């Protein structure tokens, strides 16, 4: 059954549709646009998708001042909880909240089931791949992936060769970015295998949005995500031999890190200690924390510090965030570090292009979730295609993340494209290109109006003895009209994500 949109007028493909004289309560949607991208709430004809009907009705019946009031309540709650990041632009450091949008994004049960199977398949493959390249390197001998791409990657850690990792689980926490193409199918945009963040926003958004729409929330049958911290704890525990007594800590770079709130939040929710590098010391290849009563042995570290900074003796010697000697303790098997060092080699944007082939190589299966079509600029044919079509492609540096080092062709000026082309030709191996995908859009509250904004989805995958994915994720939203960049460092916000149980 299709629900006729109580809302209109819509614009279709940028052209304003004929206003529907009967619909007067539709005001909040006055400037809502439906174009080529898939919309999370409406079909192309402006009809509400059935699984969004209850939410849509609630939004349409609330006066826009009330929506704004609820939105402000969410923001104040974030500010009071200290869910902020610090901007050091002027003399005085100011704290800002990461914008959260009141209107949840809804994912159907069947869609989620496919996501769950696809991500499980993917994380299995990536872990097997990591075990392989830090072990026998069969995948390189068989010529599936170029040797130079792995050994030349700046995230490859020679020191990890021959290190035995519990359950072969190199990646214990993974945040995979999914987007919806124009046909509505979810595809993988990026794997984040190093220190993915954002899970606290998933939980914090749920907290405030459930309060804003209690009725719809209950009626919709939204699946729980609140057990994420317990699942994370169980995953970490499963990595140590004496699971119950294992002493676990979360390692943070400290209070100035933009994700500090999340580190403290997870430590508190798991009931484990939050430590900084300076709290730990290594004696005789055993890791200890300095406590008021003396030194206390540590068994498992959930680290939120990048590889480079974990151990100044092994990696960057100028790091003051890490623990000198911890890597030797790790090699000696006296401490578990999650995620394992060296996982970054597998979320490289060039390796990404090979993941579908890796899935069939290791598992003999077809990928359940597709990749975005990717041109490897290291291949001459692809390079010339990319250079000829810069105005239609997104070009990304392979080792970068957070939206840095990329060119969004259609939105760039000719001068920007020319400058980027020069960089591309100078160092083609460092770049990949993808068609500009119109990320799907979802209704978003902007200045009291409901407008369409582009969104992606980052579910969090836990992987130890077994794989667990809590049904939900972080929906990131590009708050600027027309923008496709959802990164919080570049004007992105986030939304609650409702996965339905039926």
């Amino acid at each position, binding site marked *: 059954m299709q629900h006729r949109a109580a809302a209109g007028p819509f614009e279709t493909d940028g052209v304003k549709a004929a206003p529907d004289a009967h619909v007067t309560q539709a005001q909040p949607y006055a400037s809502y646009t439906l174009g080529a991208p898939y919309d999370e709430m409406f079909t192309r004809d402006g009809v509400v998708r059935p699984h969004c009907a209850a939410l849509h009705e609630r939004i349409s019946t609330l006066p826009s001042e009330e929506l704004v009031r609820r939105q402000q309540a969410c923001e104040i709650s974030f500010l009071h909880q200290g869910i902020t990041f610090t901007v050091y632009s002027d003399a005085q450091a100011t704290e800002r909240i990461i914008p959260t949008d009141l209107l949840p994004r809804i994912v159907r049960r069947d869609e989620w089931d496919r996501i769950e199977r696809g991500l499980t398949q993917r994380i299995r493959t990536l872990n097997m791949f990591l075990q392989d390249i830090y072990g026998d390197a069969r995948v390189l001998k068989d010529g599936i992936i170029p040797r130079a791409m792995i050994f030349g990657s700046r995230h490859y850690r020679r020191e990890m060769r021959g290190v035995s990792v519990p359950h072969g689980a190199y990646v214990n926490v993974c945040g995979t970015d999914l987007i919806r193409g124009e046909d509505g199918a979810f595809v993988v945009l990026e794997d984040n295998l190093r220190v993915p963040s954002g899970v606290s926003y998933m939980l914090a958004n749920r907290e405030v949005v459930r309060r804003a729409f209690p009725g719809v929330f209950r009626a919709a049958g939204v699946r729980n995500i609140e057990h994420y911290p317990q699942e994370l704890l169980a995953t970490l525990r499963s990595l140590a031999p004496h699971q119950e007594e294992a002493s676990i800590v979360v390692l943070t770079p400290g209070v100035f890190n933009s994700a500090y709130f999340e580190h403290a939040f997870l430590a508190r929710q798991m009931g484990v*200690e939050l430590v900084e590098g300076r709290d730990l010391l290594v004696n005789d290849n055993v890791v200890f924390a300095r406590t*008021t009563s003396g030194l206390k042995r540590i068994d498992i570290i959930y680290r939120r510090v990048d590889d480079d900074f974990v151990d100044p003796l092994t990696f960057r010697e100028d790091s003051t965030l890490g623990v000198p000697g911890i890597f030797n303790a790790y090699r000696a098997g006296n401490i578990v570090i999650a995620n394992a060092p060296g996982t970054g080699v597998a979320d490289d944007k060039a390796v990404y292009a090979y993941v579908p082939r890796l899935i069939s190589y290791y598992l003999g299966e077809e990928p359940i979730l597709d990749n975005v079509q990717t041109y490897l600029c290291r291949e001459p044919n692809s390079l010339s295609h990319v250079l000829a079509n810069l105005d239609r492609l997104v070009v990304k540096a392979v080792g970068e993340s957070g939206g840095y080092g990329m060119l969004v062709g259609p939105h760039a000026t000719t001068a920007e494209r020319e400058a980027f082309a020069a960089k591309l030709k100078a160092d083609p191996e460092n770049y990949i290109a993808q068609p500009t995908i119109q990320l799907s859009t979802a209704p978003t509250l902007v200045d009291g109006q409901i407008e369409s904004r582009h969104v992606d989805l980052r579910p969090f995958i836990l992987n130890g003895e077994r794989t667990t994915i809590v049904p939900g994720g972080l929906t990131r939203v590009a708050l600027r009209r027309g923008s496709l960049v959802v990164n919080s460092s570049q004007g992105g916000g986030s939304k609650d994500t409702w996965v339905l149980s039926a």
Partner: protein
Amino acid sequence: MLSRVADSLYWMGRYIERAEHTSRLLAVKLESMIEQSREDSAASWTRIIAAQSAESFAANPEDAFATTDSIALARSNPSSLSTSLSRARDNARQVREQLSTEVWEHLNRLYLHLQPFAIEEIWVHQPARLFRDILRDLHTLEGVIYTTLRHGEGWYFLELGRYIERAQLVSRLLGIHFGASAPDFAYAPQASKYLDWLVLLKFCSAFEPYCKEHTAAIRPERVADFLLFDSEFPHSVKFAVGRVNEALANVAPGAPPRRRAPCDRLAGKLKAAIDFGQVDDLIGGSFAPFLAEIMRQCEEIHDTVFSAYIAYDAGTVA
């Protein structure tokens, strides 16, 4: 408990106490100003500035507006109310996972509440009221801390910080009020000076408790006796030193005796000096040195706690 965490909780306790003290000084001073002569008002601002070690930030004690600004809001002044609140919150943030949500949110709200104010704005709306409000919120915070945190090691580190700070602040205030010279204990202040003593008591939340004990007849030696040696009044030095001892007995439960001993010894020594001291012994020139000695011993306890529990050398503990 992690040493770094203990350190942050200790400092959080100190800064909360300092913020409470500063907001009380400001509230009481601004309320009493109306009844003071120009000279008396300037003299009392001078004492406040000295108590806050704010001489380089507040140049002119006759300018109540500028002085209030520098003691309440100036971020350049390391002992201003705004700085204390911000440091209390910074420390709380560093141990966020050790605090209850209630404690953190209360302190965070308090901090956010003061942030947007500029002195011009405070001045037009009964300036004392803002500081009364903050004082009330700080009292509430004390209750929230008491009732939502486990009374374990972390809580005792908060207590330790709070009461070492209090012992020092009250001693300092007394020293400044009585001056370096020997106070004449037998002297009964006249009406104009009476207000100064009343204000001193109010600076320590002590006026009503004092009256219950000694009636409204304010005598300097009774004031000194009450603020130093009353065993039941929470803002007396004796009370604070008792709490310091109790807190020290409850921190670092697993530390080896040789690390505990120096802290316990120093705290016991200070307690003995207060427990067996009496105001009659302090007549003549020994009053100021007695206060200076209390403050010095508090410093020594502070340093010893740091080297025993926070920054101990890992090589010394097997």
